[in-house]
């Protein structure tokens, strides 16, 4: 017995040694990337896209490279890693976090050649959706537009995933669904300060927001004016507002099934939660799984049809972006990775795998993804028209009807305008009332944290 153990141990040591030397021998330069878990086709560090990139990079530059891919669970974790001095070349935080990172000087601007549209290999700038492009020009931090340092990866909204058989559609058009006694102990909110603070603000400013929307629809406010007022309102962290928000959130907690991050998905699919406040990409996953089940689902699986709604007053628009860190070893390689991942066919692969919506808006994405998934059968009499000019038509200007291109209008099954298609590509009017969140400054952060401990102790 002892001999066997000894031999086994020796073997294990030998193998470990071999593996180690293998690592040491690999002297290709390293590009270290950090991204959220399950956020690339083929699954994290083993993703085939990473290997394909290594080959493509060698083909383009004649140089070798090795991608080291790390995952984290949320923006705050990434922030703590960067703050502790972990080295990454390229990371993929959400809007409020890349703004904070830029303001603190932890990330740098994208190289100039990256924006050269004459270069056919600059897939990002050539295929970026006009909607994303405009948003990244309109939003800025420290007098720098987003587009100069952030390259969009995935984007989406937040809204309610609900069961239309038991939930009144009208109710989930309003943020007051959270305090609606009809859904007592059947509705969930997000278990983090940022998303819940936004929720509280939306409830606090309900009347003002309705008023603003009416003004915008009547034409007395332009799109940009409307967006700017919304942005200011939804990022208000003054002590008075925060107190009011706290009261709103306090009254909401009693009505909740609970605060959740990912735990709510299963209970929503199982029907225990009727209204689940959710990010659009996860909403797509929930709707898909509730309808079709997991692949290995048993025969007696009961299909559940769920819908997605974005409240009519305001909602959150978020963007996850690639940004290059300040101490990046090879800026060009990092930017080339962004280009590679932005190749339309790779964007489609990613969307198929993750369920979130890519910022890439080229013909290929429209044909191979949108039409492939969502166009109606020819004999579907109830099919409705859906217009995605805003996202795919590069020359589209909403004030100029002649720029409208019918290629980007297609027929889709009627239920899709409340379901996956709507979650992945909301219509233009809905997006007019969606704004991004900013980060809390130090003072607001500490106030928000103590507010949050009061709210979550119930």
């Amino acid at each position, binding site marked *: 017995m002892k001999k066997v153990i000894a031999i086994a141990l020796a073997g294990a040591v030998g193998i470990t040694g071999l593996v180690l030397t293998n690592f040491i021998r690999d002297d290709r330069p390293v590009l270290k990337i950090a991204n959220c878990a399950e956020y690339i086709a083929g699954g994290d560090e083993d993703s085939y896209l990473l290997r394909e990139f290594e080959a493509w990079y060698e083909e383009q530059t004649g140089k070798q490279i090795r991608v080291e891919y790390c995952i984290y669970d949320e923006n705050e974790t990434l922030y703590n890693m960067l703050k502790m001095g972990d080295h990454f070349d390229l990371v993929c935080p959400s809007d409020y976090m890349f703004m904070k990172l830029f303001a603190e000087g932890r990330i740098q601007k994208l190289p100039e050649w990256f924006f050269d549209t004459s270069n056919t290999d600059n897939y990002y700038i050539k295929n970026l959706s006009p909607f994303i492009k405009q948003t990244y020009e309109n939003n800025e931090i420290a007098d720098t537009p987003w587009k100069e340092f952030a390259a969009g990866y995935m984007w989406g909204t937040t809204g309610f995933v609900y069961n239309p058989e038991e939930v009144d559609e009208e109710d989930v058009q309003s943020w007051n669904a959270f305090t609606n006694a009809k859904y007592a102990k059947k509705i969930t909110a997000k*278990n983090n300060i940022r998303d819940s603070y936004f929720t509280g603000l939306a409830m606090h400013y309900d009347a003002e927001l309705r008023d603003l929307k009416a003004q915008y629809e009547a034409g007395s406010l332009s799109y940009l004016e409307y967006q700017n007022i919304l942005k200011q309102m939804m990022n208000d962290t003054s002590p008075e507002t925060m107190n009011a928000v706290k009261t709103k959130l306090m009254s909401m907690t009693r009505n909740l099934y*609970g605060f959740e991050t990912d*735990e709510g998905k299963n209970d929503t699919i199982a029907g225990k939660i009727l209204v689940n406040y959710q990010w659009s990409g996860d909403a797509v996953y929930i709707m898909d799984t509730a309808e079709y089940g997991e692949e290995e689902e048993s025969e007696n699986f009961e299909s559940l049809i769920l819908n997605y709604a974005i409240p009519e007053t305001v909602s959150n628009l978020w963007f996850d972006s690639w940004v290059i860190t300040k101490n990046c070893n090879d800026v060009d390689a990092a930017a080339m990775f962004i280009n590679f991942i932005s190749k339309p066919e790779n964007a489609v692969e990613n969307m198929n795998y993750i369920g979130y919506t890519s910022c890439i808006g080229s013909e290929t994405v429209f044909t191979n993804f949108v039409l492939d998934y969502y166009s109606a059968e020819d004999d579907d009499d109830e099919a409705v028209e859906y217009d995605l000019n805003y996202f795919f038509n590069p020359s589209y200007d909403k004030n100029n009807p002649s720029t409208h291109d019918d290629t980007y209008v297609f027929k889709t099954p009627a239920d899709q305008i409340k379901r996956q298609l709507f979650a992945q590509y909301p219509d233009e009017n809905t997006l007019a009332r969606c704004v991004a969140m900013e980060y809390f400054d*130090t003072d607001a952060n*500490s106030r*928000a*944290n*103590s507010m949050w*401990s009061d709210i979550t102790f*119930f």
Partner: protein
Amino acid sequence: MTITKPKLHFSRKLLAIPYAIFLLVFVLVPLLIILYYAFTNGDTGAFTFENFINFFSGTGKQTFFESSRFKTIVQSLFISVMSTLLCLLIAYPVAYIIANCKIKNKTGLLLLFIVPMWVNFVLRINALKELFSWIGIYLKSDTWNIVNTILGMTYDFLPFMILPIYTTITKIDKSYLEAAKDLGATPARAFLKVTLPLSKAGIMSGVSMVFLPAMTNYVISNYMTFNHTKIIGAFIDECFKNDLWNLGSVTALILLTFMFIITGLTGGFNAESETGARGTSLW
């Protein structure tokens, strides 16, 4: 005749070196880091007591004793005490019966209680949650949430209580009990006067292995109550998540001090020397 000592004398003390290194890297250094953040200012890194003052000064119009922070501490303490007591109540008889039963394969019997530990604890807690949901006590009311948390903690930490108690009981010299019997003690009296005092070291060890985790293991409370019941561990986690490292460190430090006091009061530091039972503590 003189015995020449080898130059490199391998004493038993040398065996403690790996442990000392482990202690230094994984206990002492993190502790120093916590101390650093507890006593420095977040912006400038200057020495300050500000974080402690902040912790105890309450929020808004509330005093500290009205604040959610204080309530969270009280609630954690309650959950922790109850879980520890419940664990002890279940673990002692189990350990006693296993240690004293007549069958040969005691280890096999003990394994029945240890094997569940080999399954990932998040999985076990999830299963328990589903079970409670099926019975109908999951998310039933605030009181049930606390009860469910206590049950979850008890379920998860039970083996940590059984093992040390079992070890001490098996190590008790049977002749003590025989002597007690010869001198006319009833079995109950013999148990109270001999077995129980002699197994104190195991109890103390078990209590300290359950008490602290039950105050901080927020995964259990979060899973069992869908984030409804908040314990101090969850609060610390939130602080670090939201970039308030100083406040988080202060809370951790206060918890640590608190644990030291409790351990000191219960005599946990010298439990071993009192009974002389060696190697019974799992520390």
